């Protein structure tokens, strides 16, 4: 999707980002940018730093160097307004992380009420709306443990949507699901993409990345090795990506 004419600034941009865990360098000069309405997929082996790169965008990891700008927030600076940043960014995790003691409706309505000071009735209406968006309106009053993994993940996506983020991050959101349940979650993400949501996703679903992503970032050992449209998966140029797609990772 093309960026809007009136905003030339990317929604997310990373420039030469450095990050180490102790002696281990997990991000070694990572740069990429995401435009409004764009879907970016980050792929790579386990341990390539792709999840860490994603988590840096929402400042779940502090970077050691480089520059990160997200919706105008300078995320790399220590004085970044975290709560303002996180109202603009939605994040969905591999392990769903729904709040087990709250119903699905309460899970979704909590942040709009607590953070945006929305009236309870209005938040309940919103919960119904976003839940319908992910095809779960009949689960409004269920507790998370009464839902299947795929349903929990869709509810978690709805919870993020209720905050009306400008960009959504997906951190291996189907890795804990069997193939059947994976499909229903991917369908929801596909619909979001069609609606024009800006998204960054870390995924192992190569076929899905190929079909949905406007651009793909391939990471290997903390570095971005290749960036480009989905066609880079069928005609890779770096030896690392050639090896990665050649080892059976590319199945659709």
């Amino acid at each position, binding site marked *: 999707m093309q960026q809007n004419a009136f905003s030339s600034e990317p929604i997310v941009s990373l420039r030469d980002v450095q990050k180490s865990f102790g002696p281990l360098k997990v991000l070694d000069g990572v740069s990429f940018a995401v435009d409004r309405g764009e879907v970016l997929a980050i792929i790579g082996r386990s341990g390539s730093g792709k999840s860490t790169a994603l988590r840096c965008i*929402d400042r*779940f990891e502090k970077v050691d160097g480089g520059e990160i700008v997200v919706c105008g927030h300078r995320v790399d600076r220590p004085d970044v307004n*975290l*709560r*303002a940043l*996180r*109202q603009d*960014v*939605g*994040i969905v*995790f591999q*392990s769903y*992380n*729904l*709040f*087990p*003691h*709250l119903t699905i409706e309460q899970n979704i309505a*909590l*942040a709009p009420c*607590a*953070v945006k000071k929305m009236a309870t009735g209005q938040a309940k209406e919103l919960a119904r709306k976003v839940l319908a968006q992910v095809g779960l309106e009949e689960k409004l009053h269920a*507790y998370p*443990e*009464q839902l299947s993994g795929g349903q929990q993940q869709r509810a*978690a996506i709805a*919870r*993020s949507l209720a*905050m009306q983020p400008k960009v959504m991050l997906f951190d291996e959101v189907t890795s804990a699901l069997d193939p059947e349940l994976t499909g229903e979650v991917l369908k929801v993400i596909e619909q979001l993409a069609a609606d024009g949501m800006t998204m960054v996703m870390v995924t192992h679903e190569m076929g899905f990345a190929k079909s949905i992503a406007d651009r793909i970032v391939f990471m290997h050992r903390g570095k971005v090795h290749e960036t480009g449209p989905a066609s880079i998966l069928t005609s890779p140029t770096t030896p690392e990506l050639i090896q990665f797609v050649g080892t059976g990772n590319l199945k659709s």
Partner: protein
Amino acid sequence: MSIQLDFPAVLERWPSFLGGAVLTLELAALATVLGALLGTLAAVGRGTHSALIATACRIYVEAIRNTPLLVQIFLVYFGLASLGLKFSAFTVAVAALTINVGAYTAEIMRAGFEAIPRGQIEAAEGLALSRVQIYWHIILLPAVERVYPALTSQFVLLMLASSVCSQISAEELTAIANYIQSDTYRAFETYIIVAVLYVVLSLVMRAGFWGLGLVLFPRRRRLGTPL
């Protein structure tokens, strides 16, 4: 050897027994509410980034858990008196019991806080909730639900331990029993009755906590499963 029990001689004092039992229950209820509050704050304090607050909370918890309750009661009682502050025995008893049970509550609540998965907090942070909101909406109730049996046992134990407040003449159940047995010379009968009354008080408290649990944990009430 035969034991001669004369309950009627003691039971004619039942209004006194009842008054003592009610006072014990009041003492326990007040110290439970205040101690739960104090202990929860101390547990939060131990988890803060401020080393000063964390250390202060740690010293409080360790000081209380390693000294006898009776000594703590005397320290509060004579401590306040030497400062020239006059309080009723009841007030002193509530204060001492609160300080005591607060320390144990802090340890139990800390275990509850630590049992909250990291992902829960990250999800809440990702939704832009503030630190206080996360404690209030995400951490507190699930933590309490996980440690509820330990917590309520501690509060029942506190009610039973409040019998040592008889030492500063708070007119609770054991103090009343002491008067009655010295009056009637029927010590064995008196303490049998007192023991039965403590059992009743324990059952009343346990029933109360059971009911409170139904209100606090609607998910468990509906599904019957542990968190």
